[in-house]
């Protein structure tokens, strides 16, 4: 696969995020913090409704990244959380190759990834490395 600095991946959108999406991820990951699925709990805590699990957005961004550059060849995935994600949000993932570095396994692509909300705010930002 020819991968060069400056390559960008075709953006992909996920959503609108549903409560079912959040619950399915909660079950798959074992994260049962009620703030993410229990409306009564969330509103009692002062939130307008439940909000998504940060690691759910991270998993979506990882889906996007591994479809682009490979599930078997990923060597690092680093994610930082910025903005909360709410039911109804539409998330757009994008990615760009920012460097090619040598490694013991051969050249490795360093990529920057973002997952933005429909408001334009970055929900999460990530970097990743893939053997190419």
């Amino acid at each position, binding site marked *: 696969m020819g991968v060069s600095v400056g390559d960008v991946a075709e953006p992909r959108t996920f959503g609108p995020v549903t409560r079912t999406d959040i619950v399915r991820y909660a079950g798959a990951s074992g994260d049962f913090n009620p703030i993410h699925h229990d409306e009564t709990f969330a509103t009692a805590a002062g939130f307008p409704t439940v909000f998504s699990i940060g690691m759910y957005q991270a998993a979506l961004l990882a889906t996007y990244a591994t479809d682009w550059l490979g599930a078997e060849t990923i060597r*690092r995935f680093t994610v930082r959380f910025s903005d909360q994600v709410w039911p109804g949000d539409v998330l757009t993932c994008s990615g760009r190759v920012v460097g090619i570095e040598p490694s013991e396994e051969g050249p490795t692509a360093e990529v920057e990834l973002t997952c933005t909300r429909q408001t334009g705010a970055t929900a999460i930002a990530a970097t990743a490395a893939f053997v190419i």
Partner: protein
Amino acid sequence: MSFEVPIERGKIREFARAAYSQNPAYDSPGAVIPPTFLTTAANFWGDGTHPASQLGFELARVLHGGEEYEFFGRPPHAGQTLTASPRLGERWEKEGKRGGVMRFAKIVTEYRDAAGSLVAEQRTTVIETAKPPKQEG
């Protein structure tokens, strides 16, 4: 504080589907794990004690700042049993935007295969947000 983490095909498939992935790499007898899959390890296989509880952070002010997963070769795959060893990593402080001190800590978890080789490392950043020096009201 170590615990065993069996890597299971069905859990990989369930996790990949929850993340809207149809990548065939996550759906075969030797399926690899999705990049953030090890977030499930402590939830399903941990013994309930976690180094984060030793930080002394006030729970109401704790945020999940970020996660890093590093794989030392092809990611772990279905059929393996890994041993997870979490420990407290680096700690640091920063002044909050509205005064007070923000405290940061890393939890580092090593994952080793049956031969004892390090196959993955997870680094979790935990933040305790600042308590403003003077509380109002």
